[in-house]
């Protein structure tokens, strides 16, 4: 088996045991692991570089400000935004999406307007819109998906109409791993003068995003799913839209000039970043982006593909296993949701846990999707480029242990009803 050259960069992958077994970490859709250099970057900032940004005139603060702002440029290039003013640092994808829902949705929507989502959405791209709909009288409409787990564009053409003001869709399903046609949906949205929002939490870690090519109006993602620290998110917004939004928090960092009765605000993204930000987190996110670019999306895609092909073809030979979503490994983005016969996902994941294999069981914050699939929960294994075929092997062993254990202890026929 060929050695994965990246594994040694991640201390947790080589040094940690789970339930006395070497860790096989397959919960990357929840959060990725962090390479040593990202961990070191946080430590270096606090050890030698700690200062507040944007205000002080001393050299330490200038360096911290430069490093922080450089990450904004890095993110801009990473997703090919037109301007650095289009990149706002938040705490998470969830905060980014809530921000758009509240700052744009609540301000612009009127009774009878329509918000178009898909049935695949993570709760964080659903619940904020439910709240906006309640407050404004706007109506939610949902796009369904086909057998491949992909939104049906023909149905979307009928749903997206003159009443549509917002279309907000995940680019990759966090349950099925299926890739959604957000570029085509953005075009449809713009044809009716609606805005297009993309939840890119699961896509940005896996493939190259170009916001100008997608022509989306807002795009949200999190640092922690792409090797960065927790507590840092990004909201991309087109300049012409951000200019129409007033800041929501007021105070330090975001003001230009303050008198006793009046204040003026900074321009661009900075006016949305009130108060002292997660400086260490953003700077370490910069280190994560540099590392990811060194790895390269070609390698990431190739590894995703190889792991998915190997895992899915093995699972297709297991008669008890049902895989949700596409039969095509290329349409899984490292994510496999499955069930094992009638065994409850929590029972399955406990066997995996004892085998040292970290997977997720539950509704994955996507209850409408679970209902659509006709299940209350699934198991989910999610891979990243530092996983290798050994991890797939460990996954299959845990699956066999699950089947063996519960087949040895079969459900007794009910004696009475």
């Amino acid at each position, binding site marked *: 088996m060929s050695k994965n050259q990246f594994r040694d960069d991640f201390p947790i992958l080589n040094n940690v045991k789970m339930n006395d077994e070497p860790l096989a970490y397959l919960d990357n859709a929840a959060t990725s692991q962090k390479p040593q250099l990202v961990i070191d970057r946080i430590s270096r900032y606090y050890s030698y570089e700690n200062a507040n940004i944007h205000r002080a005139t001393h050299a330490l603060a200038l360096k911290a400000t430069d490093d922080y702002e450089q990450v904004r440029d890095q993110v801009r290039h990473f997703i090919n935004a037109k301007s650095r003013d289009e990149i706002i640092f938040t705490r998470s994808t969830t905060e980014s999406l809530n921000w758009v829902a509240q700052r744009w949705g609540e301000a612009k929507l009127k009774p009878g307007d329509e918000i178009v989502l898909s049935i695949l959405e993570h709760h964080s791209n659903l619940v904020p819109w439910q709240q906006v709909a309640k407050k404004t009288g706007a109506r939610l409409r949902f796009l369904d998906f086909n057998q491949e787990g992909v939104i049906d564009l023909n149905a979307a053409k009928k749903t997206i109409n003159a009443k549509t003001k917002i279309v907000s869709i995940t680019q990759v399903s966090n349950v099925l791993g299926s890739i959604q046609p957000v570029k085509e949906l953005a075009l449809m949205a713009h044809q009716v003068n609606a805005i297009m929002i993309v939840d890119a939490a699961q896509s940005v870690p896996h493939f190259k995003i170009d916001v100008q090519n997608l022509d989306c109006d807002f795009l949200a993602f999190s640092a922690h799913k792409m090797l960065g620290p927790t507590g840092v998110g990004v909201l991309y917004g087109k300049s012409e839209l951000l200019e129409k939004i007033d800041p929501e928090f007021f105070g330090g960092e975001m003001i230009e000039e303050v008198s006793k009765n009046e204040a003026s605000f900074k321009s661009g993204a900075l006016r949305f970043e009130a108060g002292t930000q997660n400086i260490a987190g953003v700077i370490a996110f910069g280190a994560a982006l540099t590392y990811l670019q060194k790895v390269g999306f070609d390698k990431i895609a190739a590894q995703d593909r190889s792991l998915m092909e190997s895992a899915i073809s093995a699972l297709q030979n297991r008669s008890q296993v049902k895989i949700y979503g596409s039969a095509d490994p290329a349409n899984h983005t490292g994510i496999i949701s499955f069930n094992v016969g009638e065994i409850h996902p929590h029972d399955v994941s406990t066997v995996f846990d004892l085998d040292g294999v970290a997977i997720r069981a*539950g509704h994955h914050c996507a209850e409408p999707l679970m209902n659509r699939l006709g299940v209350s929960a699934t198991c989910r294994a999610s891979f990243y480029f530092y996983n290798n075929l050994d991890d797939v092997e460990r996954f299959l062993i845990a699956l066999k242990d699950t089947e063996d254990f519960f087949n040895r202890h079969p459900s007794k026929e009910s004696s009475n009803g």
Partner: protein
Amino acid sequence: MGLEGLNQLYRQVVLDAAVDQRYRGQLLNPTAVQLAHNPNCGDVLELQIKVSDRHITAIAFQGQGCTISQASASILADLALHQSLESMQTRISQFQKMITGKESVEIDQLGDASVFSKISQFPTRVKCAGLAWDALEQMLKNNQFD
């Protein structure tokens, strides 16, 4: 821990109780009904009881769930039938202390439910084991039963 831990968690009595049908379903004219929801997995369990003279005279549950939550509900039902509300209060509190493993506790009145005495070693499953018990606790709190 490794796989031998599985045998600790899924003892035969648990596996049997998980498929025990005796208390599954609904009661006619229940005195109280309580829904319990495990937000981690989306499992929902509905517990129903009939109470007469402050004793549980009938008990049933329905819902989908994992082996642990279903077994625990069956075992609870079997234990609660014909018991006084007061004695169940004591048992619920014993059970809850036992499964969280926070303090050593008398489990002499728990019967088969003591099979979950090691579940605190499986923290992700404590909620599953406690689901039906939490539902009964809520019922006793929310109702007067006079």
